[in-house]
């Protein structure tokens, strides 16, 4: 009989359902096929005019349409779809009755330009429009749905009511780490004995003019627009920034005891999570790498593991000059000589940076890596950066023995999280 508690006496947390939507497509099957084939989901943006923008490419989700299109509408729909896939796979609870809390990683919420325009036109003003103008018409009944739609809790409220999760749903933002932070919250709740199961979801749809221009103004985005599919090139010498993308990732996690009791198929184990925040700068990491080093060490300690036990690292690997360099510094400090041997690949080379959803999507891809014993590549790796001598699994997927995988997410604003997953309980 397998022990249901880990070395530290905590309930072992396992994954019993996964759902995913990315620029490569909807669902695990489609995504895994394309990911391992080294395909790119990055294309020229056609959703809105990109005239005058320095970056005109992104990883859009075309497989799901919301009419009329709104960022929040698509973010919610992707979350719905990924949640359906995960809950169906887990076979847990009943329709509209999920036996545990919801943790959602999501982006900050705001009105879009289409809505501001709509209000301005409704006001019928012909000049000097300001927020007073918009406020004057905002109370009209046709705009009533905009209240709920633009609350920060909007998507979590929707998911919790539709899928019948228990208690107060939590929406977490840690920028690029949000997706894994949502999983970490669920793991902690199960370890505390508050719940036997948790629905951990993440979604992001920020591909709109202001969303892109904001990152552009911080020089964070690749401007290699001519060949969209090769713009995201983590760890390459000529990388020049990340490619913004959208998507959703959802996992159902349970205590091993509860999952076993109901005969659920175990898809993987969350062995440990670690985090550490950075106080150096609002967008840049501390040059000594200490927060990233500490984060990775915390994850290993939490999992009760040593670096030599990690067979694969799913990198944060955004393709920015800064992150990829810092990620190497952090990993090489903790892993020593092993840093150049352990395979380190970046899903972002193919799906781009799905922001709030990235940590969850990439955890799912790491679990699929463990399931299939096949490591997705880092594509677009034509000119290696000699300062980053990782084995990036260049350009082609590789079959390998993978018993434990680490996935990193290092957020804007210095919020770093690493998660370690294994195929089976230790």
């Amino acid at each position, binding site marked *: 009989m397998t022990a249901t508690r880990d070395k*530290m006496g905590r309930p072992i947390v396992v994954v019993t359902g996964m759902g995913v939507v990315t620029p490569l497509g909807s669902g695990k099957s489609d995504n895994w096929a394309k990911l391992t084939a080294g395909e790119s989901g990055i294309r020229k943006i056609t959703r809105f*005019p990109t*005239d*005058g*923008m320095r970056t005109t490419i992104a990883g859009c989700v075309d497989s799901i349409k919301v009419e009329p299109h709104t960022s929040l509408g698509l973010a919610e729909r992707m979350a719905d779809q990924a949640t359906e896939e995960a809950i169906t796979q887990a076979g847990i609870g009943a329709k509209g009755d999920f036996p545990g809390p919801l943790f959602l990683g*999501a982006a*900050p*919420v*705001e009105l879009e*330009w289409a809505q*501001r*325009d709509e209000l*301005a036109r409704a006001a019928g*003003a012909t*000049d000097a*429009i300001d*927020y007073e*103008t*918009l*406020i004057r018409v905002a*109370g009209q009944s046709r705009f009533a749905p*905009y*209240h709920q739609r*633009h*609350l*920060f*809790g909007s998507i*979590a409220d929707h998911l*919790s*009511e539709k899928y019948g999760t228990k*208690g*107060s*749903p*939590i*929406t*977490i*933002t*840690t920028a690029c780490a949000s997706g894994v932070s949502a999983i970490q*919250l669920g793991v*902690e709740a199960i*370890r505390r*004995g*508050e719940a036997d199961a948790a629905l951990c979801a993440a979604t992001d749809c920020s591909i709109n*003019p202001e969303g892109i*221009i*904001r990152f552009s*103004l*911080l020089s964070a985005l690749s401007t290699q627009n001519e060949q969209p599919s090769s713009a995201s090139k983590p760890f390459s010498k000529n990388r020049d920034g990340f490619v913004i993308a959208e998507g959703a990732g959802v996992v159902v996690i349970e205590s091993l005891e509860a999952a076993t009791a109901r005969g659920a198929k175990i898809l993987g184990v969350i062995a440990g999570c*670690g985090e*550490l*925040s*950075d*106080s150096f700068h*609002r967008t840049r990491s501390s040059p000594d790498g200490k927060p990233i080093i500490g984060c990775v060490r*915390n994850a290993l*300690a*939490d999992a009760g593991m040593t670096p030599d036990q990690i067979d694969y690292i799913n990198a944060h690997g955004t393709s920015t000059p800064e992150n990829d360099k810092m990620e190497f510094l952090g990993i090489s400090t903790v892993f020593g000589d092993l840093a150049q041997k352990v395979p380190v690949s970046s899903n972002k080379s193919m799906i781009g940076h799905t922001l709030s959803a990235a940590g969850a999507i990439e955890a799912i891809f790491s679990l699929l890596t463990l399931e299939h014993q096949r490591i997705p590549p880092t594509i677009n790796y034509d000119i290696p950066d000699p300062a980053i001598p990782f084995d990036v699994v260049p350009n082609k997927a590789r079959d390998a023995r993978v018993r434990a995988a680490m996935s990193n997410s290092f*957020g*804007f*604003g210095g919020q770093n999280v690493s998660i370690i997953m294994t195929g089976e309980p230790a």
Partner: protein
Amino acid sequence: MAEGNTVETKPVETWITGIGLASSLGEGIEANWDALTNGALNVDETTYAPFLVHPLAPVNFDKQIPKRGDQRQMEPWQRIGTYIAGLALESAGIKGNAEILGRMDMIVAAGSGERDLAVDGAILTESVKGNVAPDFLNVRLQSDLRPTLFLAQLSNLLAGNISIVHGVTGSSRTFMGEEASSIDAVRVALARIASGQSDIALVGAAHNAERKDLLLVYEFGKFNLRDKFVPVWAREPNGGFALGSGGAFLVLESKQHAQARGARPFAKLSAVVADHARRSGANAASAVTDSLTALWTRLHPDAGANAIITGATGAEPATSQERRFLNQHETSAIRATGSRFGHLMEAQFPLGIALAAFAVSKGALFPPSDSTGLEIAMSARPSQIVVIGTGHWRGEGMALVGAAD
């Protein structure tokens, strides 16, 4: 900080050892307490007419954010929050203590930062004239937005700024979701300490009410109180809230950790419970009342607990439903913070806990200031206070604050 390697089976006692508070009534818990005792009220009925706001009392940001460069990176919301976080750390006696701050956990409840209203207005003014070029929006945003404005807007960057300015660098999480987000922030911070996953945490939120972009969102639902100030309990049938500027941060700490460094508590935080009632559907008319009733049972206050501090917003139908719940506690001394400070949204619940903790430490509840008579005076020492948070739209929660032994 790294998670503890074990999970405690017996809940670890958790103290409130630091309080940071600023509002329309003043800066710091003492000034706010004095203002409450004196019945002071600071409401602006003209600047945002027909709406009312409770504007922030003057604050010298230099005192907690010494570098002007840091202040310039922020807009008011983040400045207010970073300032108040500093007050809380000072209150707990750990400001500048790098060893503790380096492993301190943090959960911030947040909305997001201010839009550039002038840029938005100018773009819309051009746009409605029609005949704008396809690249119009892109070009204007690119040239008119200050590049670092995004950082001042990002929800997780209040926490980021607290890390940078004050050196709080254990874990950093930001919860979003209006009133419920701070109820859950306190709940999770407490749960982590109680179970041994954390030793010390900074939890709280800030809110800038003086924002037309924010008033707009609530106006869609017609939640803004209009024209004239009246206390929360006097706003039926239309209801409404007057947004308030300010915020509250708390330092939560295990009793053991506090005693080891010689820290004294304001109060003990015994429990936080929360839920998300289904407010539309068959049970709509009593969903909030039933939820609060069930939460009170789960919270399990002492029989003698007869003081309630509530963040009741004044919004309907939630406030009427809360009143029906409060009717079950007629002999309790009730205080609506919304009538004194306005509605600080994400900061309302931590504000309530801060006041409860201070009241317990002072041995007195602040006097009522309510024209309806619902709030009654209390001369006895409050040994245990229940803090209530009822979201204007969704989410309910309660906290139990009592005297530390």
